[in-house]
């Protein structure tokens, strides 16, 4: 069979991703062998072998020549790789845990890859191997598997930027004088360094090493800490909470921020509108909630309350979604405030989800700008972002994404609404899934964890699609509906 260039391109990325995935599963396999979890270890080794066989055979057949690949193919590759890896993980879920249905396993897999951190059923006790596998998927999905592939592929002949931005889109403004490839490697290095740092700090703070590893992997990728009491971690010691909070913030800010630090571009650091907006949002929300608590006489010790609130706010704004404070005692308005912040979410080029701060900032500025234009219709006034002016297309794009996000959110709620008779929970679950937070308002206010026991397989599939849409920022999924996406071209 003669492969076209497009197919070679797709296969190249695909096989590399599979090999990376197989290698990443090895620790989980080792752990499960160590703890004598036979069912899981058998399943996982079968999948590892399967991935390696497919990956190696595909690799062996490839003789890659550099050529221009169309954006369409980039998007297809991203979607294809993500779907395959989710499928592989759901195979493991399905065969390794007898209490999961097909839809449950797909949901679980999507939740771990998209860093949502929701569970399909409440497990009494997950096996250690399974926990580590989920944390690994969180970690890989957090930074983006495609980005790792692009960073690691040795024979990469062009920059790979156009491929990587299909996975981490958004107004990223990641332009340094370096090559994109070096930038991506740098991002991966930074990501690994942050994870290791968190692991060490957690162990020093007194956490058991294995739990610390799981926590580090899933908190830097802003997935939530589902392995400790289903994400309700109010009982942890204060230093551990502080560490988790710090690394949730670090994982949810724009990675170009670290690159600018590493490359010593301090002047550009100062003009990061996104970072300013993000920190301002965290602080203002925290201040607001503390003020409300004081107003309603719920605050006993103001500095401690401020700290607790800050940790909870960070948990939700960074779209991690774990319960760290007793927010069930808060007035409802505080929880509303937190929920609104979940929609806006984190910075672009980070491991978090949501609309993204950059887009929201541009949206707010464009409102101001359009007011000005209503008064002075003939004046040309550009919108400034990071001290550079944006083109009108960028501004429209940002605004449109907000509308699109809301549209998908509404459609998601509508489809989930087939299954439930409560409008609020339909919206609630749709929100938790599309923002990749995984924490519903109901859970937040009840201080409980109730999984999706009431939902049918159809709703779970809808939620999986929503999570994927939130993670890949809608466009790759929207493209499925375009005829021109499926056109084959003879690129030989």
């Amino acid at each position, binding site marked *: 069979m003669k492969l076209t260039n497009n197919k070679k391109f797709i296969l190249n990325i695909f096989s590399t991703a599979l090999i990376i995935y197989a290698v990443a599963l090895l620790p989980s396999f080792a752990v499960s062998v160590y703890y004598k979890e036979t069912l899981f270890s058998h399943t996982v080794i079968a999948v590892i072998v399967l991935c390696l066989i497919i990956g190696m055979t595909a690799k062996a057949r490839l003789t890659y020549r550099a050529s221009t690949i169309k954006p369409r193919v980039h998007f297809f590759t991203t979607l294809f790789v993500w779907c395959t890896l989710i499928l592989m993980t759901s195979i493991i879920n399905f065969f390794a845990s007898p209490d999961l249905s097909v839809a449950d396993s797909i949901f679980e897999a999507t939740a771990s890859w998209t860093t949502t951190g929701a569970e399909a059923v409440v497990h009494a006790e997950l096996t250690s191997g399974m926990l580590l596998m989920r944390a690994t998927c969180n970690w890989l999905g957090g930074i983006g598997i495609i980005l790792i592939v692009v960073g690691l592929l040795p024979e990469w002949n062009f920059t790979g930027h156009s491929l990587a931005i299909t996975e981490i889109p958004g107004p990223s403004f990641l332009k340094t004088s370096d090559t994109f490839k070096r930038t991506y490697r740098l991002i991966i290095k930074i990501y690994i360094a942050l994870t290791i740092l968190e692991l060490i700090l957690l162990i020093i703070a007194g956490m058991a090493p294995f739990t610390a590893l799981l926590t580090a992997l899933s908190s830097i990728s802003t997935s939530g800490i589902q392995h400790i009491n289903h994400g309700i971690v109010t009982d942890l010691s204060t230093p551990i909470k502080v560490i988790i909070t710090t690394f949730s913030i670090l994982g949810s800010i724009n990675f170009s921020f670290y690159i600018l630090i590493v490359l010593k571009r301090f002047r550009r650091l100062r003009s990061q509108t996104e970072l300013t907006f993000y920190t301002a949002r965290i602080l203002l929300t925290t201040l607001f909630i503390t003020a409300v608590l004081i107003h309603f006489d719920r605050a006993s010790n103001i500095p401690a309350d401020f700290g607790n609130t800050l940790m909870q706010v960070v948990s939700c704004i960074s779209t991690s979604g774990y319960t760290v404070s007793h927010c069930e005692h808060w007035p409802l308005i505080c929880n509303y405030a937190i929920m609104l912040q979940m929609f806006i979410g984190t910075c672009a080029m980070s491991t978090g989800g949501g609309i993204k701060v950059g887009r929201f900032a541009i949206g707010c500025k464009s409102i101001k700008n359009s007011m000005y234009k209503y008064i002075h219709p003939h004046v040309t006034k550009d919108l400034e972002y990071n001290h550079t002016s944006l083109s*009108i297309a960028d501004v429209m794009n940002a605004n449109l994404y907000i509308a699109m996000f809301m549209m998908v959110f509404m459609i998601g709620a509508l489809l989930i609404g087939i299954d439930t008779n409560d409008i609020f929970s339909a919206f609630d679950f749709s929100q938790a899934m599309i923002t990749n937070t995984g924490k519903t308002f109901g859970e937040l206010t009840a201080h409980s964890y109730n999984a999706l026991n009431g939902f049918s397989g159809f709703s779970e599939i809808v939620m999986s699609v929503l999570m994927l849409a939130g993670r890949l920022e809608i466009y790759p999924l929207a493209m499925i509906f375009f005829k021109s996406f499926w056109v084959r071209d003879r690129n030989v």
Partner: protein
Amino acid sequence: MRTRIRNFFGLFLIFFGACLVLPLIIALACRETSSIRAFLITIAICLVAGFINMRISKGDFISTKLRLRDSYFIVAMSWFLALTIGALPYVLSGAMPSYVDAFFETCSGFSTTGATILTEVESLPRSILFWRALTQWLGGMGIMVLFMALLPSFGIKGQNIASAETPGPIFSKVSSRFSGTAQSLYIAYIILTGMLVIMLMLGGVSLYDAVCHAFTALATGGFSTYNAGVTHFDSDYVYWMLTIFTFLAGTNFGLFFVLIAKGPRAMFRDEEFRLYAKIMGIAIVLVMISLMTRSGYTSYWRALTDASFEVVTMMTTTGYSIANYVEWTAFAQIIIIIVMLVGASSSSTAGGLKVVRVLVSLRLMKHFTKRKLHGNMVDEVKLDGKRLPSETISQITSFITMYIIVLIVATFLVSFSSGQDLVTDFTATLSCISNVGPGMANVGPLENFAFYPDFAKVVLALTMIIGRLELITFFIVFTKYFWNNHAVQKNGFTLFRRRNETYK
């Protein structure tokens, strides 16, 4: 400049006083002493204030040109006047003792929302109920548009004022002169109202009820003169008449002239109208399926009547109801929430985001997705075969963002003091910003807004006005750009002193 605007307001107040004569006549006919006094006092206030303003502003005002921003100011200010004065009859007649309640009711009236704080409607004097319906009718097509249709010779740039007041991003012209357009719009409006009155009377509704309901149906308002709302009539004929006429009221009024001039095919070629009908059709079918399968309806006719009545009145933001849709499935309720948000056509009397904006953003989504798919593709966003300027599109997209933000912030403010659940607060706010009337849960079709505390009522009332004036006209008055450019009159020339204007 100032004299010019003051003169304008003087005339407006007198005009507003004249509008109040209609309910006064009803009050005289029904011998309702308390409301006769209330209307007389209000009319007197209007006339005195109007004449004082006219007297002060004697002078040569024809030579002054009104700037673009003055039209926003005039519309915002005259709505403010209409709302504060329009609430007086309610308070003075003793129908609503609290001014906040009366203000809420007036806002709900002029903005054609139809949300009410009254638990008991039938006990009110008939003239007050008529005034309630009339406020909706006046607010529906725009009180300033009516003013301009009646006083074409005032020489003001009516187009600007109309686009500041009429719903929708694109103001379609019917006649070459603006006052002609205003007159045509009102003629269509009056003819439709008259037709509905006759149709309702054929169905056995009394003249008074027919007029009141025709006023609120054509304005897509939704006030009724009965506690039970339109279910009081209990006749499918009346329900279907209201469905058809609210559907027409949600159509772009300019299209009726297209219909007369070029026939129905030209009307169906209008893309906004097509999408409007399409969304409505799909929503009706989905709701019907949901009703038949999950809500225990057995008759197809009943399900069709209920589904189409509810979807049409909610989408045209009228807000009548013949079924308690709060008891329907979540699926059907979310469909209703979605159509509430979308709203009806531009240049109609309805509220909401407007179908044309949704249409343009859907096109734009397609456009951007294609652009991402095919890198260097050249493509344009078109509406009715014409290329849309990027300025307009950008304003539409930021409008949608603004709508979402205002909706969320208002929900937040309402829930601050209400103590209700989030669904109630959110749908109440959505209902107010889209000018619908009822919401879900505790503000459902059988409930009212009486339980909200005063703060929440004021926020909701303002939200209605913000929604009716399409955000911009309301918020623009509060921007610093609006005030920082003073026009100074010297020797007959208008000089603009620019301050703080760095275009960056």
